[in-house]
């Protein structure tokens, strides 16, 4: 038997923080054989990224310490290498792709130059040769017109193209090991599919080994040979990918497999990791009724009360030109959109970045002024209401944004954040009463009341999104727009938040517009689904129909882009 390319043995990584030592990786071991892909799966904070940075020798010293363990790469212990030796390996024999293509490239250098730089330092070739190699690589990763594109700056490229540039950079020196840290998480599903296919193909063609890190088991279903599941700094399960997907043993793995919404048949509420195990990690039996497939049609609220009607809505942005910045043309972000939503129901809007779905949501709330068309809310035309009337309206209509990290003021406590809407609208009685309301709602969204006086940075992404939801509900709105509200969350957390939104809808009779790029999520939560493309709604149907009988090519493309990994196993067999 040959030695594996990379062998991590009993690795421990600790961080020295102001509050003491935190163990981020706890005694883990795994191997990556030559020419194979290993998926490392776990939620944020499980230690998977720290492991990859330890392999690269990129942990932030002196905060991070490795008190124990060995990382053998081709028989050499990387942990015993000094900085100079590591530099010769980094980018040359082991290279890495990161999660955020938007910020991972240097904004002030041409992309060709950024690819050529790695070649120059490791291969000792002339600028010209390195540049030609860069152009060749850009062609290899499927960037159109590579010799011209090499002269572009990162901001002139789309997210998917930037990630392709990152991949070209990573494979530029023919590395033996490619580490991909959530390379598709920030991308639209269709782009995700293309990038996954590209990585898989390159891995095969160049006979590289790949370490693919993700929070979503579904993503690696098609490309990983082996899977390592990490949970709270430990490896809880590792096996051949086939085995993991068909015979998962650890309850956490089962939870991860079950929590992703499937197209079509889903239980009433998504299963979550907490259905499979307790906080302490003890396995639980999932009650049979939790996995019963729920037929949405059977429970659609029979109401004719139309809460919101949009008629031929257009929102356009001016394009400036000329000597004095006159408006020379308009860009229609929302182009002649019409729909109705009945009270208590959910309309899902799905489409890729730039299709106008966010602008549409903001136009409905009048956060952006629509240019034409009508917004009729509860029988009243609100397209042009102003001042006091608009303020009263805002009480009834709320929005939950995508990024729970940046949409909470870091200098306000949770209590202040929750009470602020009440203060603005002068609602809720005395300060003590307002505090009590905030406390009650915080518990409703599943957070302990004792956390009221903490600050946002003390919470995880999922918890922050719960706080955002609670804030949106403080004024007891009737209508809530969820703008990519679960897209930044891990799949396991996403399931919890989706369940919470459904629970709250049931309890308060809320009406939702749910905006997302992920059709499986929209399909799960919405009663009706609209597919948006280039500012228009190109297809609209009942959620239970759209995945079965998509009428447009674009919808079919969206459907086929959903990762298939998880569908190999039925829910019942997990329990």
């Amino acid at each position, binding site marked *: 038997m040959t030695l594996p390319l990379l062998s991590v043995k009993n690795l421990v990584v600790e961080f020295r923080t102001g509050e003491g030592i935190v163990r981020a990786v706890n005694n883990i071991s795994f191997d990556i054989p030559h020419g194979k892909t290993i998926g490392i799966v776990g939620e944020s904070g499980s230690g998977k990224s720290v492991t990859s940075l330890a392999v690269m020798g990129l942990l932030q010293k002196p905060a991070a310490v490795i008190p124990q363990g060995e990382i053998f790469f081709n028989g050499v212990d990387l942990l015993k290498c000094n900085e100079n030796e590591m530099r010769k390996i*980094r980018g040359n024999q082991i290279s890495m792709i990161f999660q955020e293509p938007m*910020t*991972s490239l*240097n904004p002030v*250098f041409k992309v060709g130059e950024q690819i050529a730089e790695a070649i120059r330092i490791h291969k000792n070739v002339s600028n010209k040769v390195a540049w030609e190699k860069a152009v060749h690589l850009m062609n290899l990763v499927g960037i159109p017109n590579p010799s011209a594109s090499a002269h572009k700056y990162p901001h002139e490229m789309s997210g998917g193209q930037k990630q392709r540039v990152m991949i070209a950079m990573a494979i530029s020196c023919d590395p033996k090991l490619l580490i991909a840290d959530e390379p598709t998480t920030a991308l639209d599903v269709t782009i995700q599919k293309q990038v996954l296919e590209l990585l898989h193909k390159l891995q095969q063609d160049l006979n590289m080994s790949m370490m693919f890190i993700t929070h979503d088991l579904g993503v690696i279903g098609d490309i990983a040979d082996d899977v390592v599941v990490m949970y709270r700094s430990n490896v809880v399960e590792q096996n051949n990918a086939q085995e993991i997907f068909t015979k998962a043993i650890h309850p956490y793995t089962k939870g991860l497999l079950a929590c992703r919404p499937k197209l079509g048949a889903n239980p009433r509420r998504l299963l979550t990791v907490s259905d499979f195990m307790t906080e302490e990690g003890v396995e639980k039996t999932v009650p049979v009724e939790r996995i019963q497939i729920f037929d949405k049609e059977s429970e659609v609220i029979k109401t004719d009360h139309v809460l919101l009607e949009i008629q031929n809505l257009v929102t356009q942005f001016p394009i400036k030109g000329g000597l004095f910045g006159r408006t020379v043309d308009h860009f229609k972000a929302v182009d002649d959109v019409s729909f109705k939503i009945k009270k208590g129901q959910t309309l899902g809007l799905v489409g890729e970045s730039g299709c106008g779905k966010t602008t549409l949501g903001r136009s409905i709330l009048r956060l952006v002024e629509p240019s034409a068309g009508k917004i009729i809310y509860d029988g009243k035309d609100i397209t042009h209401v102003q001042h006091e009337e608009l303020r009263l309206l805002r009480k009834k209509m709320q929005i939950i944004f995508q990024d729970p990290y940046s949409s909470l003021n870091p200098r306000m406590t949770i209590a202040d954040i929750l009470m602020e809407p009440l203060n603005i609208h002068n609602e809720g009685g005395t300060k003590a009463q307002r505090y009590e309301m905030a406390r009650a709602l915080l518990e409703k969204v599943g957070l302990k009341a004792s956390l009221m006086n903490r600050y946002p940075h003390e919470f995880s992404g999922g918890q922050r999104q719960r706080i955002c939801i609670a804030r949106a509900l403080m004024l007891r709105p009737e209508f809530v727009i969820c703008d990519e509200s679960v897209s930044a969350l891990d799949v396991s957390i996403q399931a919890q938040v989706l369940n919470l939104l459904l629970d709250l809808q049931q309890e308060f009779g809320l009406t939702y517009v749910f905006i997302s790029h992920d059709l499986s999520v929209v399909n799960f939560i919405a009663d009706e689904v609209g597919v948006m493309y280039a500012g228009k709604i190109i297809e609209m149907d009942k959620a239970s129909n759209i995945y079965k009988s998509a009428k447009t090519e674009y919808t079919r493309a969206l459907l086929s882009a959903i990762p298939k990994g998880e569908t190999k196993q039925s829910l019942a067999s997990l329990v």
Partner: protein
Amino acid sequence: MTKYIIRRLLYMIPVLLGVSLIIFLLFNVVSGDPTAVLLGKNATARQMADLREQLGLNKSMFLQYIDVVKSAFTFDFGYSWATKQEISQMIKQGSYPSICLSVPAFVISTIISLFISVFVAYYRGKGIDLFVRVVCIAGMSISALAYILFFQWFFAYKLGWFEISGFEEGFPAFVPYIALPAIIWIVLSIGPDVRFFRTVILDEIYQDYVRTARSKGLSEMTILLRHVLRNAMIPIITYVVIQIPSLILGALLLENFFSIPGLGGITLNALNSSDFPVMKAMAILSSVGYIVFGLISDILYTVADPRIKFK
């Protein structure tokens, strides 16, 4: 780009009109009658009326405003009340010593500060970084006057390395006169400059693209000089270029203590003798300077950062 520059230059017109209005209101309306100050306590009403006539103060408010506007666009500021010299001539003469002092001092201090900043950013968190930061704070905490008095007494008087005061035209004749004030200037600016540059550079060091550069196998120094510094240039350009108009004014204190006959000295004299036309001229000149150098720094952004494009 050309269009953008033309548009920005046209925008100068309303800005200059506004600046003239504020200067006019300050000197001609708010400040009251200057003849009382000029003629002293024992002036008769007759003398004051004559002087008003002579200075054009009995013209209508509107015509007086037009005079200010005219001077803002033609740079013809009339004559000084105190010295009776033509003001544009005075400014021309005063500029030479001021520029001899301020330009070398400014350029050298900026370069030294950038050098130190990159150095301490490389050793961030280490002893040398802490030491430099402490020295910067300590240096900033001492009054400029203390430096001037001590340096003048010690280096010029005690050791006799430099001229104590005065000025001589022509290179290299002026060097011994401006060397010591220039050194004081450099010592004074290094503290705040290094602190600012260091912060800007360290802001960049934690960006994702730096992590990418490290994962390529670049050395830390290459990353700092090639990747980080280019990105830190935008705030550095703003900080540096916007200081340039104040260089024209020279250093009020330094010029005064070292008896350098520059614009700083002219301004101080004008303040002391209520020489309104000179004060107005200096106010207009510095606003024009700020507008022009604001434009220059905007144009430099496009050189430093390809994401910025003007239409």
